[in-house]
């Protein structure tokens, strides 16, 4: 099944009953999937909105009214959604936002890229808030993390972002959809009309500074709890590794291919793959640095996750970086070349050119 459709199907199975979106490549298949399949479900609503701004506000309304809700877009559209994401974080409304990243800044291009890491993991919109960000790297994870995203959004009453890229959205892989957990969302947070009782309201505007400060601290405590409980990562081939590549999403797939090549050359390279980008798995990475001292961050950007790796490892290990922004997806061969050149040397007399064949990359060996 195609990546974009996997997300759509997983969302529907997870009980998503409201989707609003605006066309943008490379995620149109997801919008189209929802148009076709969500409307067939009991109570399912699909709206092609007039803009990404409208879409995010529609899901905010639907979420307040008690529906599991989702919107999706790609980089420029996600920029437009930031006002609404900030507002949902302030109002503590659950919702799932999918970003199939493309090259930027500006209109950029429609090639797979990872340039929105900062925007996603630092909140993205204005104000003191964070968004949970999950980065799938396989078709199976697209399904699983989409279901998890709805659960996390409900659990913490906060918007959750699935951060992938055009490559993940387009690729075809077999997936098994697990049985979703039953929804647990307290009724007291849902707007249903006051009935015969007290009315309630949902707002982000708090004019009194002291009251606003308390709200900020309340959110901060929630974000701290999320940081403690919800970090996720995959550690691959790291037991005997001399060097570890840190990469997420599509870049991590490329890295796995590179690691196979590097290992066949006798170089002991492993992978650390953050799955939750916020909260970043700092603790897990720090633990790894107890026995591994060389890390290379690999991103399809000029270096954004690099900051989080530095925060985790600065002073504990050497941190190197390789990036290809702008929609370029390097091959495992290219990455393995880069890594092999920067692989730590123990013995001054070893000439590695004699030990393995250097693979040609697009810029020569």
């Amino acid at each position, binding site marked *: 099944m195609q990546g974009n459709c996997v997300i759509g199907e997983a969302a529907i199975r997870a009980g998503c009953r409201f989707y609003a979106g605006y066309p943008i490549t490379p995620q149109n298949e997801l919008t189209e999937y929802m148009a076709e399949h969500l409307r067939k479900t009991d109570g399912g609503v699909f709206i092609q909105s007039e803009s990404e701004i409208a879409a995010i506000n529609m899901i905010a*309304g639907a979420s307040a*009214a008690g529906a599991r809700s989702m919107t999706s877009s790609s980089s420029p559209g996600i920029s437009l959604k930031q006002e*609404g994401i900030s507002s949902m974080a302030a109002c503590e409304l659950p919702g799932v936002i999918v970003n199939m990243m493309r090259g930027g800044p500006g209109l950029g291009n429609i090639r797979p890229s990872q340039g929105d890491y900062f925007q996603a993991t630092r909140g993205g919109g204005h104000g003191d808030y964070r968004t949970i960000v999950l980065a799938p790297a396989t078709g199976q994870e697209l399904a699983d993390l989409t279901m998890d995203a709805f659960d996390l959004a409900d659990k913490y009453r906060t918007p959750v972002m699935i951060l992938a890229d055009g490559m993940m959205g387009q690729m075809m892989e077999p997936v098994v959809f697990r049985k979703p957990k039953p929804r647990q969302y307290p009724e007291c947070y849902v707007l249903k009309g006051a009935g015969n009782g007290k009315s309630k309201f949902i707002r982000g505007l708090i004019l009194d500074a002291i009251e606003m400060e308390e709200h900020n601290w309340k959110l901060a405590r929630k974000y701290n709890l999320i940081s403690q409980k919800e970090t996720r990562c995959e550690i691959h081939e790291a037991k005997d590794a001399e060097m570890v590549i840190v990469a997420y999403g599509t870049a991590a797939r490329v890295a796995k291919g590179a690691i196979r090549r590097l290992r066949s050359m006798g170089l002991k390279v492993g992978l650390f793959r953050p799955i939750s980008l916020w909260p970043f798995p700092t603790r897990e990475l720090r633990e790894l640095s107890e026995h591994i001292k060389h890390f290379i961050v690999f991103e399809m950007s000029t270096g954004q996750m690099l900051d989080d790796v530095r925060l985790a490892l600065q002073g504990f290990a050497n941190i190197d970086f390789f990036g290809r922004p702008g929609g370029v997806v390097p091959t495992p061969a290219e990455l393995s070349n880069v890594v092999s050149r920067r692989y730590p040397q123990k013995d001054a007399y070893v000439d590695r050119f004699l030990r393995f064949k250097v693979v040609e990359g697009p810029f020569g060996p």
Partner: protein
Amino acid sequence: MKKIFGRPRSLKPTPTHYCPGCGHSIVHRLVAEVIDEMDMRGTSIGVPPAGCAVLAYFYFDIDMIEAPHGRGPALATGVKRVLPNHLVFSYQGDGDLAAIGTAESFHAANRGENITIIFINNAVYGMTGGQMAPTTILGQKTTTSPPGRTPLLDGYPVQMSEILAQLRGAAYIERCTVNSPPAVMKTKRAIRKAFQYQMDKRGFSMVEVLSPCPTNWKMSAVDACKWIDEVMTKEFPLGVLKDIGAKEAGKEKKS
């Protein structure tokens, strides 16, 4: 003793922050009265804007959810589609509806979204201190049109009711005012009709209210009411701009 006048159940017993002579408080009361009369307090959801009415959830005793500036119709759309049998309305100023939120209001109307917009047209940005609004009258002095609004530099007043009335999704649109007791009663009837159309699932409805803002017009409350009659209604004529019910009734008569 028979009670003949009281506070509507759908309004909380709190004083509002609105200036003396402001139209917002009158319209709040009218909306609340209509909700009471339709017996819909328990199944109404209001969407207040960014604007002077931003604190409306402190005044209405019904469920409410705040919208970012201009996004009321999108938010109300989300609510309404999940709760199709509820009364859902967004309450918006002219900056909110006709500038930053033009796309949201236009497309909600065009989709025939079964919601009602209560549109307060006071020809200025009230909350931010009286800047020029899309509805500011030609020649009107505001803090951002100090010599008076000039078409060459500032464009023309936007007539949103006329524009939205052209859309096929719009079922009922009327422009009223609240500058005299008869006008207030008429506005109430318009709100009632709009809400009724919504409950009958006939499509999008909007009631535009020409509303005095004595503070930013720098007039007395009485002069503000006069100014609506003498100036504002010339640019924004009162009346029903769209009523698919009347059209249907007319057709019935003919056939």
